[in-house]
């Protein structure tokens, strides 16, 4: 277990307080540039977002900037489209994350065995994650899902499937397919790391104790992997919540609002509606929601970080 190399000593007897403070600043020094940079580029904008959320301001109507208090937020809460976007976000995030986790775990178990060419297979399997998301969306929409010329239709023809417009008829499923395709490697890598860190002697003890392979998996491996699964799910969800590229490329949020998630909805309001006040309040609302979920998640993630560190 790697511990922090050294903890700063609080004013030890005989140490003049100024030297202590100087040491403190000497230690803080290296952190400052990164800290300041991050604050300027992320926190200040957020504060501004907060500020704008209390204004009414549409870029298309210059001079419309004025204070309206909480009315933007009221509008958000009443906004059916917002609630729809929220629902879509929750659905796609949880759905994609969970499916990717299950698939990823299965793949990790497969790859953990002494299979010939393991390294090559792993390289193949991580590719979906590396391919540019925008490119992936484009490819799946055209070469895979096209009703007439797409591969998926061709592959499913023996099963009686003909010229199905996947993106048009099953937009959510189509988008989620691409999301799962992209994120399964992520889950697989995390689970693989967990499997490889597993102490072999406990497995051997289980073998000697009479457990068959499935019992070993259920009683020993699965409990061991739980923190990794939680970490994968949480971290994955955090990344997946912000999905934008695939939706923009494949469905543009549609048909209608069938695939409009929160990031896309915000994009629409900002860059198509140019309603800054509304968009800002949407942004803040999203942040508040994310923050609530994240602070629960953060505590768990932090605990998991320290639990898996040094395993």
């Amino acid at each position: 277990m790697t511990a922090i190399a050294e903890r700063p000593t609080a004013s030890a007897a005989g140490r003049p307080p100024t030297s202590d403070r100087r040491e403190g600043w000497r230690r803080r020094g290296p952190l400052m540039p990164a800290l300041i940079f991050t604050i300027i580029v992320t926190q200040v904008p957020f504060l501004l977002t907060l500020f704008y959320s209390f204004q009414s301001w549409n870029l298309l109507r210059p001079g419309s900037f004025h204070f309206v208090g909480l009315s933007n937020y009221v509008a958000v809460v009443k906004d059916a489209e917002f609630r729809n976007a929220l629902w879509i976000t929750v659905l796609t995030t949880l759905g994609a994350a969970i499916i990717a986790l299950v698939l990823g775990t299965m793949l990790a178990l497969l790859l953990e065995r002494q299979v010939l060419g393991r390294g090559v297979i792993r390289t193949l399997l991580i590719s979906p994650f590396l391919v540019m998301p925008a490119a992936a969306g484009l490819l799946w929409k055209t070469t895979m899902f096209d009703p007439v010329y797409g591969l998926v239709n061709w592959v499913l023809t023996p099963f009686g499937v003909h010229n199905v417009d996947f993106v048009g008829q099953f937009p959510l499923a189509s988008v989620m397919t691409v999301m799962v395709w992209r994120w399964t490697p992520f889950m697989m890598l995390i689970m693989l790391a967990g499997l490889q860190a597993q102490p072999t002697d406990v497995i051997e003890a289980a073998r000697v104790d009479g457990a068959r392979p499935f019992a070993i998996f259920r009683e020993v491996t699965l409990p061991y992997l739980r923190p990794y699964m939680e970490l994968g799910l949480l971290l994955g969800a955090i990344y997946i919540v912000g999905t934008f590229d695939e939706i923009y490329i494949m469905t543009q949020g549609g048909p209608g609002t069938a695939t409009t998630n929160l990031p896309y909805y915000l994009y629409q309001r900002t860059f198509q509606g140019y309603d800054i006040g509304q968009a800002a309040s949407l942004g803040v609302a999203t942040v508040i929601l994310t923050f609530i979920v994240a602070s629960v998640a953060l505590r768990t993630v932090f605990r998991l970080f320290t639990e898996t560190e040094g395993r």
Partner: protein
Amino acid sequence: MAAQKRTGAARAGWTALAWLVGIVFFFPVLWMVLTSFKQERDAYTTTPHIVFTPTLDQYKAVFSGGIGTAVANSAIATIFSTLLVLVLAIPAAYALSIRPIKRYRDGLFFFISTKMLPIVAAIVPIFLAVRNLGAMDNIWTMVVLYAAMNLPIAVWMLRSFFLEVPRETLEAARLDGAGVRQELTEVMLPVVAPGVAATALICVIFSWNEFFFALNLTATRAATVPFFLVGFITSEGLYWAQLSAAATLASLPVLLAGWIAQKQLVRGLSMGAIK
């Protein structure tokens, strides 16, 4: 011996399954590369053509279509933002691991929290600020934004590498009179150099693939590769082979980077939590 024969067959079975799964997952990528070498008439077909006469026409078309500038822009944004990230993150990670500040946990918490808040929260004022500063469609804007985007991951990842330096080596250096800067350059950096490389590769992957900022804050001069791909959504509806060529070019650098940094990918993705 019966047992060995059994395990031999079982092993072959698992191997076959693993390869099957690997190929299925990889197939869309493979198809993308294959299609990029086809004539359009071979690409836009109801039944897939596996045999065809390859051609470089699509790549030529894509290059004359302007992907060259996009690639250059992406390269600048990626390389410089990564450099900026390293310059900021290395000292920061140092301050959170080797000679930690008193409240290093808070520092870490802060960085990870900025990663958790979706970009959506900041896009409105960033968009406005960039516009008002006249920095729209400017590649250096992207450099700054990408750096901010990758900084938290880099800090966490580098910190996890720094923690692996054996304590005794550092103590020996300190006893020999090394100051902070020497500790960093003479002792640590040589040891964590592979870790720094891995962090850089992860930043490259995320910067190169970034779409949202590129879409909204660039236009013609600073357009990066993802932005270039957008042109294929509507207008080039029937040019699948060309689309595949563009997609292949777009994905190639990161595919290679990811294949090289494979082992470190987990670390980067889990922000250093898992080795």
